[in-house]
């Protein structure tokens, strides 16, 4: 196994496991950032330069900050001494293990194990941009619309309730 890949995989997995298992929510968010950064490095290793940096820009720069803000705004929700797992956690864990097992078996038994390594593609940002403006112009417009709608929606949902039922 490639040592760089091994290190990044370990970092990402450790970050992910810590992000869903730690008690302190802010620590969870920070570990999530580690996982995101590890994934971005993996993208770079896979020659997807632009996507890797976009991952850092969006996930580390925006999503992680959003999560941190949400954690601080819902401050009373810190568990304290309560259990951190939900009441039906055994079932959830069982489902997760089943899914992981199924995916693992599927990957292990598929022919991708013998897939040839193709020469490294070097997509330039210019090519990506041209694709976005020609083949993918409709999805691009749709995603613009979606982001606008999501922004307005998020603002309206999170806006202060004037006379909410208490």
């Amino acid at each position: 196994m490639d040592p760089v890949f091994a290190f990044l995989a370990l970092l990402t997995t450790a970050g992910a496991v810590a992000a869903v298992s730690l008690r302190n929510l802010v620590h969870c968010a920070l570990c999530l950032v580690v996982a995101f950064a590890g994934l971005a490095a993996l993208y770079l290793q896979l020659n997807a330069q632009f996507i890797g940096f976009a991952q850092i820009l969006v996930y580390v720069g925006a999503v992680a900050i959003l999560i941190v803000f949400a954690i601080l705004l819902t401050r009373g929700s810190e568990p304290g001494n309560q259990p951190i797992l939900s009441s039906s956690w055994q079932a959830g864990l069982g489902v997760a293990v089943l899914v992981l097992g199924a995916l693992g078996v599927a990957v292990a038994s598929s022919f991708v194990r013998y897939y040839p390594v193709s020469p490294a593609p070097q997509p330039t940002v210019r090519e990506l941009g041209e694709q976005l403006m020609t083949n993918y112009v409709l999805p691009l417009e749709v995603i613009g619309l979606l982001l606008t709608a999501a922004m307005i929606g998020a603002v309206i949902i999170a806006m202060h309730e004037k006379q909410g039922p208490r």
Partner: protein
Amino acid sequence: MTPLHQYLFLSALLFGVGLAGALTRRNAIIVLIGIELMLNAANLNFIAFWRFSRHPELATGLMFVLFSIGIAAAEAAVGLALIIAIYRHYRTANLDQFDSMKG
């Protein structure tokens, strides 16, 4: 060069961790973190398949991931806004207590 299936294993592992987090934790924000992890696992799959495809110049996987990142950002914003709105209402982000629709 790392073979494809190792990336797929890593991605499956991340997906499993994310799913476990989303299904077992009580806090709504951690559930959202789990969902983000699952999305990222899928993105890793796309990138890996693109890298090992026969026609990487088409950049289909990259495009998909680009859109997926955009959607994930929107999803995180709306999801967190929902959590904040619910928190304001119930004074908790604990999923077990959102049970007013329970029969």
